[in-house]
């Protein structure tokens, strides 16, 4: 057992993947000597060299576009996008090329590319450093999308993402990078929970509270704080595809669902989940599915982010609303 933060666990997972497979490469801005602005690639440049840890020119379209070419040549690139808001110059390569390559080539081309993106708010940053762009990825066929909420998942899921032959958008909850826990790095990857599976983070009986990434901690705090209701917290882990059997099972048991995320409300992940749960669990629902999300506005200046981000109070308010029926 090793005590690791989420950031260090991803770092250890990257290292394990690079040791396991010489085709695994890391590329991005400042990932080399600096070890990335969050130090997630710390030490990799020193140990694996400039051929496998590539400090790229400052161009996100270039990073993703060349990763596609590397993948065609048999490599497994792990690209780092420095912050959520800087993904957008790479949107074309991601949406028109990366996501569609397998289908376009009738399966002859695989795109084992992982795109790591530190995402979400709560760090007091300037513009474009606090966004939650997951809905854009969810809406694009051909991409798998996951987000981690604890060091254990960080360590294993980055390795699973790298072994996947599909492109994986790997969303890292930047305000939780420093959360610590014990990780059994000696265990075998075969025993780790599959990347696509949701997890019951805390069992309960009265209401299901579904979250992923940075909001899982808030959801667990809400379950702790609410002494009137027994809240079951689900950590979604995979946003595309969603592990619906686990979601449905929980909702059929509790009869209520609250979905919390930092992404904006309209067209957000919660909207799709609410629709599916309504279709499949209609007769078990005691209340409509409640969403607790960011407002439909641009991410505000940092002095307002405490109001903009769904916090403990807003999540509890959402739970209360689910019991108003």
């Amino acid at each position, binding site marked *: 057992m090793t005590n690791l933060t989420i950031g260090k666990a991803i770092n250890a997972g990257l290292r394990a993947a690079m040791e396991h497979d010489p085709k695994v490469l890391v590329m991005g801005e400042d990932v080399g000597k600096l070890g990335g602005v969050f130090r997630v690639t710390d030490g990799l440049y020193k140990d694996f060299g400039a051929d496998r840890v590539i400090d790229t020119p400052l161009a996100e379209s270039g990073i993703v576009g060349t990763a596609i070419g590397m993948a065609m040549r048999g490599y497994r690139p792990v690209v780092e996008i420095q912050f959520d808001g800087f993904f957008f110059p790479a949107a074309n390569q991601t949406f028109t090329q990366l996501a569609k390559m397998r289908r376009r080539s009738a399966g002859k081309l695989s795109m084992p590319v992982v795109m790591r993106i530190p995402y979400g708010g709560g760090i007091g940053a300037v513009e474009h450093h606090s966004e939650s762009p997951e809905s854009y990825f969810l809406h694009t066929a051909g991409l798998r999308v996951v987000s981690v909420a604890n060091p254990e998942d960080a360590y294993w899921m980055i390795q699973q993402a790298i072994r996947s032959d599909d492109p994986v958008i790997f969303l890292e909850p930047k305000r939780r990078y420093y959360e610590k826990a014990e990780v059994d790095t000696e265990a075998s990857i075969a025993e780790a929970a599959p990347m696509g599976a949701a997890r019951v983070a805390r069992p309960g009986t009265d209401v299901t509270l579904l979250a992923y990434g940075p909001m899982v901690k808030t959801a667990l705090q809400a379950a702790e704080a609410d002494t009137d209701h027994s809240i079951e917290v689900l950590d979604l882990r995979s946003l595309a595809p969603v592990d619906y059997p686990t979601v449905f099972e929980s909702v059929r048991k509790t009869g209520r669902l609250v979905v919390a995320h930092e992404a904006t409300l309209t067209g957000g992940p919660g909207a799709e989940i609410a629709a599916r749960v309504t279709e499949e669990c209609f007769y078990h629902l005691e209340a409509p599915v409640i969403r607790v999300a960011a407002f439909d506005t641009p991410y505000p*200046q940092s002095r307002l982010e405490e109001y903009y981000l769904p916090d403990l109070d807003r999540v509890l308010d959402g739970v209360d609303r689910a019991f108003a029926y």
Partner: protein
Amino acid sequence: MSDTGVHEEPELIQLLTPEGELTGHPDYPLEISADEARALYRDLVLVRRVDSEAVSLQRQGELGLWASLLGQEAAQIGSGRALREQDMAFPSYREHGVAWCRGIQPKELLGMFRGVTNGGWDPHEHGFHLYTIVIGSQALHATGYAMGVQRDGALGEDGTAVISYFGDGATSQGDTNEAFNFASVNNAPVVFFCQNNQWAISEPLERQSRVPIYKRAAGFGFPGVRVDGNDVLAVLAVTRAALANAREGNGPTLVEAFTYRMGAHTTNDDPTRYRASAELDEWKAKDPILRMRRYLEGNGLADEEFFASVDAEADALGEQVRTECRSLPDPEPLEIFHEVYAEPHVHIDRQRAEFAEYLASFEAEGA
């Protein structure tokens, strides 16, 4: 040294040596009065003070972040003072010296880094667009604005020129290269002003370009020039010439101001992880303020009293910046919903109303 292999390029335009000797340059004659020279010195000292105060304010928790211009004062003051009132500048996020020249109050810059606004000043009123953080984006905005100027027929001797600021790292970005090309094929009245401070966070210039940056312009079909970015007189003369060229309808120029980021990338950064301190020492000898001071002293253009008065003014400005920063009010929570759309919008209206009710419920509880 950042191993760029381009430090010793001979084409560097310089008017003032690091020792403060005025050598001049045949292609860039500059008539400058003692008053003007002193005013430039004052600008340099004052913007450095605003900058160092901002760094301390960040350390004290008053700002979330600050991107220091330390070392780049001459590049910014020289180019900023070359602009005319009607000109339009498109900055990145480090152009506090240019902002100063455009009449933006330090507290307006601090407001953004404190997190109380996303910029806030009126770009039209100042001829200075908002800071742009997504690298390279503003080069295209500048080019489009210049194409508008062109269509307005606002060229000629008293016409309008546009300038776009960006860094060495930004020259890798697609947007920047597209801007070069759009400006070129349209012969747009825009100056691309690249502050090559040798670093893009931890990446040295060699990770961005194998040729000196100014030479890239040739491939796009317009002139490029490298100026000593720590020489305020050379930057002033070269930028003026490039702006005049644009103004008169002769199209874009790429100005590469060869300078050095003497501080960290931002207050979040730790440059000891990736660069040697010897490099900093080498550039300290080329300090833009020291050089101007030597020039003024050496030529009897300013006396002790003048330097003392500028220092006193800087102290007062520092005090003002500290007080103003601390008293910047936090925005009201409902400000989140302001100015998202020009016309009323049902989602926003509904969410604002719900959130107002939600906030009021706490007040009711507290009462």
